[in-house]
C-alpha cells in the first residue's frame, strides 16, 4: 500500500514538474508536509547528497526519498514513478515528431528552437559559473573586491580551459578525465 502511494506521489511529481530536476523540489516539500514520510530537514540533506553524487539531480532525489521512505523497493518505485509520465509523453511526442519533422512549419519552429536551446544552456552554465567562480554573498557582506573572486576555482578553470581547447595532446580526452582530475585538484588544494 505504501509502495502504491509512493509510486502515485512520484508519478504526480513527474507529471507536473516542468523544467528539470530542480522543478521537482516544491513537490518534494509538499510530499514531506502531507505524508510525514520524511522531514524538511532530511530533505535538505537529501538535496545536498543529490547534488554531490553522479547522476541527474532529479533522479537522485527521487531515489533518495524513495529509499528513506521504503528501503530498496521504495527507491526503485519512486524513481520509476517519476520517470513514467515523461516516458509516456516523450514517446508520443517523438512519434509525432518523426511523422511531422519534414513539415515546413515544424522545421521553421525548430530553426527558432535551436538558438533558444543554446541560450538556455549558456544561462544554466552562467548560474554555475556565478556560484562556483565567484563568491557574491561574501562580497555583499564585506564589500572587499578581493572577496568577490574564488581565486583557486578561477585558476583551475583557466587551466582546464587551456587543456580542453588549446593543448593538442589533451583536448581530445574524454570529459570524464577532466572531471576526475578536477575532483582530485579540489581535494588536493582543499577547495
Amino acid at each position, binding site marked *: 500500500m505504501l509502495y502504491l502511494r509512493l509510486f502515485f506521489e512520484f508519478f504526480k511529481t*513527474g507529471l*507536473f*514538474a*516542468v*523544467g528539470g*530536476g*530542480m522543478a521537482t523540489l516544491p513537490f518534494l516539500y509538499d510530499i514531506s508536509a502531507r505524508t510525514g514520510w520524511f522531514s524538511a530537514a532530511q530533505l535538505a*540533506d537529501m538535496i*545536498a*547528497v543529490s*547534488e554531490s*553524487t*553522479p*547522476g*541527474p539531480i532529479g*533522479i*537522485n532525489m527521487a*531515489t533518495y526519498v524513495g529509499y528513506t521512505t521504503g528501503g*530498496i523497493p521504495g*527507491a526503485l518505485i519512486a*524513481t520509476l514513478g517519476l*520517470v513514467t509520465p*515523461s*516516458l509516456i*509523453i*516523450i*514517446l508520443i511526442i*517523438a*512519434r509525432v515528431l518523426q511523422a511531422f519533422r519534414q513539415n515546413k512549419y515544424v522545421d*521553421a*519552429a*525548430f*530553426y*527558432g*528552437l*535551436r538558438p*533558444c*536551446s*543554446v*541560450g*538556455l*544552456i*549558456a*544561462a*544554466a552554465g552562467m548560474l*554555475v559559473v556565478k556560484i*562556483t*567562480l565567484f563568491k557574491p554573498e561574501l562580497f555583499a557582506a564585506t564589500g572587499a573586491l578581493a572577496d568577490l573572486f574564488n581565486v583557486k576555482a578561477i585558476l*583551475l*578553470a583557466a587551466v582546464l*580551459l587551456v587543456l*580542453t581547447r588549446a593543448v593538442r595532446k589533451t583536448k581530445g580526452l574524454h570529459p570524464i578525465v*577532466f*572531471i576526475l582530475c*578536477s575532483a*582530485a*585538484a*579540489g581535494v588536493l588544494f*582543499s*577547495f
Partner: protein
Amino acid sequence: MKQLWELFAAFARVGVMTFGGGYAMIPMLEREIVEKRGWVTSEEIMDYYAVGQCTPGIIAVNTATFVGCKRAGLRGGVFATLGVVFPSLVIITVIAAVLSNFAEIPAVKSAFAGVRVCVCVLIFNAVLKLWKSAVKDKAALLLCLGVFILSVFFDISPVVFVLFCAAAGILFTQLGVRGK
C-alpha cells in the same frame, strides 16, 4: 536485443558521468552519443533539449527517451531511460544505506567544488560547439542572445522562451529573414 542493451549501457555511462542538472549532461551526450556512436546529431540534441524544457519531467530522462525512441522505437525509449537512471539508483541507495552524512565529509565537499569548476568549463565548450551549428544567421543570433540575457537577468520560465522562439522561427522563415 543487442541494440536495446547498447542503449541501456550507453545511457548508464552518460548517467554516471553527469554531475548536476540536465545541462551538465550535454557535454557527455555530445561525446558518448553524438561523436562516439553517431546515434543522433548535435542539432537533434538541441531539438530534444528544447522540447524537454517544456514537457513534464526530468530533462535528462526526456532526452534519453528521445534518443532511445529514435534509435529503437518504444522499447529503445524505455531502455535508454532505465539506463540513465540506473547509476543513480545504485549510488544513492548505497550512500543512503551506509553514509548518512556523505555530503558533509570535507573531502567530498572539496572534490565536488572541483568538479563544479570542471562542469563550468565543459558547458562553456559545449555552448561554443552548439553555437556553431545553431547560430548561422542574424535572426538566430538575436534569439540566442535574447534568451541568454533575459534568462540570466530575469526569472522567466524556459517554457516561455521555447514557445516564443518556436513562433519566432516560423515568423522569421515566413518573412524570409532566415539564412541572412
